[in-house]
């Protein structure tokens, strides 16, 4: 029927091989020398070494991957997430070589990958974006009507700045009138350009995201995920559905995602990320990820749809097999990321050899992983070892199931974030679902002792 080349590694490569095999596709796993013993290489029908450990010389090397595809007679390429998944040149090169690309067309990656063009596409599709100036402002007179729209606090950004430089936050009108001329003068001095952008600051926002699936014409959504528990912008705990959305907001949010994905004739699996403000019940589009995401399993659990399999199907030219009305939410799912990082040492990542592994099981419990007992975790790639996913009838039951499953999991030989998840699962605020994207950083400051393995009896 065909042969799928997996241009990735780790747990997502394993996930893709499983989906391909269920579809009757043969699999080719490309790998660096550091991954010769990996689980993905063991599970694939064929494996091709494409270079030394460093990703730049292997997993990011387009020519080497295309050579491996030609040598093995592969008919399709799945990029996973990270590495080349959102590289439009790679997408174009795969299609130019006559292979099916398991993702959206290069043009859609370009359009949605650029923040300015994505924001414009969203506005044209009627999707709310974070309120701000349409273009550059240079004076208070130009800026006043903009802040009348955005309200306070508002972020003043140097148009020519970057990496957080030249950013000021004004909390009220008086402060704004003082800061704007300062910011303009500073931008002029630092960058030779006094132009400024204004953007509303959405404080204590939640991160919600809508999963979509398209076949290039029809697009459906598979509801939302909430990923507010983050450390340094990295998601740590993800769930579906969001515990915060009222039903009418969920409906409007998911419809907006479908409208935008339809407008760009989206093909494959994609995610539209939003900020959500509990107080005003407003949501704002931030960006689209044109690939399968790490946290896709929670959506699979609550919809019963195998996202990776459907992604491969539509990208091989099949039509979507279901309409929106066929997709229903059932229960609640939570995913936690097990990283080879030591929570007691400021999350220092640590490679090594896994000397002991005990995987949790039982009802509603799934563990997507690259691990096997005796495997070696190389230092060259990210620290994700696996994802523990649980599904149950509601959020309270899912958290109890998560605690139970975390208690069964044993990984020895490398440090992991297991203790963090155990502490989170019993935290009253996590249980109440009162979260925002800065919550975990504050919690870590206050709860360091819970993670050092020296738990104290509360006194």
């Amino acid at each position, binding site marked *: 029927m065909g042969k799928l080349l997996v241009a990735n590694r780790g747990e997502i490569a394993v996930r893709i091989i499983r989906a391909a095999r269920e579809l009757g596709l043969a699999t080719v796993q490309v790998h660096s020398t550091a991954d010769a013993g990996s689980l993905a290489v063991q599970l694939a029908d064929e494996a091709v070494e494409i270079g030394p450990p460093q990703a*730049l010389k292997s997993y990011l090397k387009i020519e080497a991957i295309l050579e491996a595809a030609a040598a093995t007679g592969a008919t399709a390429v799945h990029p996973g997430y990270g590495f080349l998944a959102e590289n439009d040149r790679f997408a174009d090169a795969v299609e130019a070589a006559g292979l099916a690309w398991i993702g959206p067309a290069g043009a859609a990656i370009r359009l949605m990958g650029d923040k300015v063009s994505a924001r414009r596409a969203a506005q044209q599709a009627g999707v709310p974006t974070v309120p701000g100036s349409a273009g550059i402002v240079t004076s208070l007179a130009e800026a006043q009507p903009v802040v009348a729209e955005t309200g306070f606090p508002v972020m003043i950004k140097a148009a020519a700045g970057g990496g957080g430089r030249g950013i000021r936050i004004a909390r009220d009108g008086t402060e704004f009138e003082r800061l704007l001329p300062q910011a303009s003068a500073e931008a002029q001095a630092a960058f030779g350009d006094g132009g400024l952008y204004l953007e509303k600051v959405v404080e204590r926002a939640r991160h919600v995201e809508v999963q979509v699936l398209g076949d290039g014409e029809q697009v459906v959504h598979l509801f939302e995920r909430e990923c507010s528990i983050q450390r340094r912008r990295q998601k740590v705990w993800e769930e579906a559905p969001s515990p915060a959305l009222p039903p009418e907001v969920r409906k409007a949010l998911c419809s907006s995602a479908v409208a935008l994905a339809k407008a760009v004739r989206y093909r494959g699996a994609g995610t539209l990320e939003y900020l959500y403000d509990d107080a005003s019940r407003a949501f704002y589009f931030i960006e689209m990820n044109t690939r399968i995401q790490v946290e896709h399993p929670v959506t699979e659990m609550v919809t019963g749809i195998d996202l990776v399999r459907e992604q491969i199907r539509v990208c091989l030219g099949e039509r979507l097999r279901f309409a929106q009305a066929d997709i229903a939410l059932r229960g609640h799912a939570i995913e936690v990321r097990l990283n080879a990082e030591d929570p007691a040492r400021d999350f220092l*990542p640590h490679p090594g050899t896994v000397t002991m592994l005990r995987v949790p099981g039982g009802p509603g419990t799934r563990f997507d992983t690259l691990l096997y007992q005796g495997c070696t975790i190389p*230092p*060259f*790639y990210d620290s994700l070892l696996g994802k523990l996913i649980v599904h149950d009838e509601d959020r309270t039951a899912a958290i109890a199931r998560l605690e139970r499953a975390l208690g069964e999991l044993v990984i020895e030989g490398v440090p992991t974030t297991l203790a963090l998840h155990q502490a989170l699962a019993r935290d009253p605020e996590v249980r109440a679902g009162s979260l925002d994207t800065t919550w975990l950083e504050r919690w870590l400051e206050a709860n360091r002792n819970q993670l050092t393995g020296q738990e104290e009896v509360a006194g």
Partner: protein
Amino acid sequence: MAQEILSPLPGTFYRKPAPDQPPYKNDGDAVEAGDVIGLIEVMKSFHEVKAEVAGTLQEFLVENEEAVMAGQPLATLA
């Protein structure tokens, strides 16, 4: 007697703070205790390698972007 600066972690060794910037140190440079001589990237996070004593950096023993093991000598200091 020459001393060796050892890699504290396994990973990839970088001699420059960024690809478009000059190396932290070159062969023959004077080094103060605490000076950064390179970076180790481990699992996509970066850690500075510092000289523990002052001296002259005689020679780098590994190339820029070379994979290194924990405890592997990176440079000699005299």
